[in-house]
């Protein structure tokens, strides 16, 4: 597909222009960190960041989302009948999605958009969104995207890829949606003939700068119960405090809880992100809890990402290597360490090869 080159000023002008047709989200620095926010008029995304603290998943899948409303007023005809809330589905665009986070959307889609059921809230928002990615020229020490199915210039899940080069940006539309956004932004500009090879060089350099890796090659062929019963879980889970940080900052964690809230005679049914780290997540009304103990919940998180998902979809791991859980885990539980332990676990001898991350 064609390649365009724009300077920073045209890039910004284009983003501003696109706002007439799209609700535009982008990274904004608030307090000390970047997070994705809906951009106001005249507000530009701050593209000078390594990665945002929270992932862009909340653009499609907000932490709290109203699903239905109802009335408890007996005098009304629709008393106690759930009614759908009209969620806005006008076009959205997310600017500055890193390639790792971009891959999370097709991964999460496998959960929300299934042959049997479509999660209307997620699917409608996803379909309405154009993902404008930003290639990574400098990775974090905790990044391991190259061994998690993508890379700093990865294109999967994106509609447009931006590549920063000095004060200029290469614009690479990747899909029809992406073409439309580029048109709406009015981005146009010839590229030099050597552009393609230059981008290739930048890509190679960026990939080489990512030194952290995980080994995932043997996960698929392991027996689920062998890994489940592996002896290392209790030790690895020792430091865990069972907070929800890893799951909430993870771009591929999708679990939620459904809650009703009533105020006077009217109320709403809503969903909120939930976490497999919380005991309440699996607590039966009878009091029984199949994952009652901390290490069982830690095991669930890693087994889900690195084994159950692998078995269910046969399409890589449920992790994109963004490293957020490593950077933000309060007690330094490192998915790279656990992943390598799982990958190298030998049920016969019950040992993992020495691992480092």
């Amino acid at each position, binding site marked *: 597909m064609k390649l365009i080159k724009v300077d920073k000023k045209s890039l910004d002008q284009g983003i501003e222009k696109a706002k007439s047709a799209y609700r535009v989200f982008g990274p904004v620095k608030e307090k000390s960190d970047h997070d994705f926010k809906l951009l106001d008029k005249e507000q530009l995304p701050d593209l000078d960041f390594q990665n945002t603290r929270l992932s862009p998943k909340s653009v499609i899948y907000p*932490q*709290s989302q109203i699903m239905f409303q109802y009335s408890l007023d007996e005098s009304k005809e629709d008393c106690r009948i759930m009614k759908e809330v009209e969620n806005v589905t006008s076009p959205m665009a997310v600017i500055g999605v890193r390639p790792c986070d971009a891959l999370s959307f097709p991964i999460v889609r496998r959960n929300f958009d299934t042959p049997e059921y479509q999660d209307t809230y997620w699917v409608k928002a996803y379909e309405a969104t154009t993902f404008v990615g930003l290639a990574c020229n400098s990775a974090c020490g905790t990044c391991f995207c190259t061994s998690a199915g993508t890379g700093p210039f990865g294109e999967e899940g994106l509609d447009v890829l931006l590549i920063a080069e000095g004060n200029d940006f290469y614009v690479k539309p990747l899909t029809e949606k992406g073409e439309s956004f580029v048109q709406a932004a009015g981005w146009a500009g010839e590229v030099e003939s050597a552009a393609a090879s230059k981008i290739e060089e930048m890509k190679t350099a960026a990939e080489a700068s990512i030194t952290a890796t995980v080994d995932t090659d043997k996960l698929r062929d392991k027996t689920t119960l062998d890994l489940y019963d592996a002896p290392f879980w209790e030790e690895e889970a020792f430091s865990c405090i069972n907070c929800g940080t890893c799951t909430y900052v993870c771009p591929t964690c999708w679990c939620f809880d459904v809650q009703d*809230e009533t*105020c006077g005679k009217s109320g709403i049914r809503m969903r909120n992100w939930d976490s497999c780290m919380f005991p309440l997540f699996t607590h039966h009304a009878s009091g029984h809890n199949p994952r009652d103990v901390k290490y069982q919940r830690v095991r669930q998180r890693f087994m889900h990402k690195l084994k159950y998902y692998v078995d269910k979809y046969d399409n890589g791991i449920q992790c994109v290597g963004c490293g957020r859980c490593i950077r933000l885990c309060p007690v330094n539980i490192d998915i790279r360490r656990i992943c390598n332990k799982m990958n190298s676990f030998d049920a016969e001898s019950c040992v993992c090869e020495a691992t480092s991350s």
Partner: protein
Amino acid sequence: MKNLLEHTGIEPGRLHFSWISSAESTKFVDVVTKITDEVKTLDPANKKYVKTEPKVD
């Protein structure tokens, strides 16, 4: 309790403690009347810590 609520911006006068025995019905009425009258004189704009329908994005 009162201190931290006020420290975090709840207007003084919105939380009240009294010691009333179960036998002191008239005192109870007097105190409640007095407090409700007092609270009514406060600026409704400061009625902050009241949950309505959840406000989420």
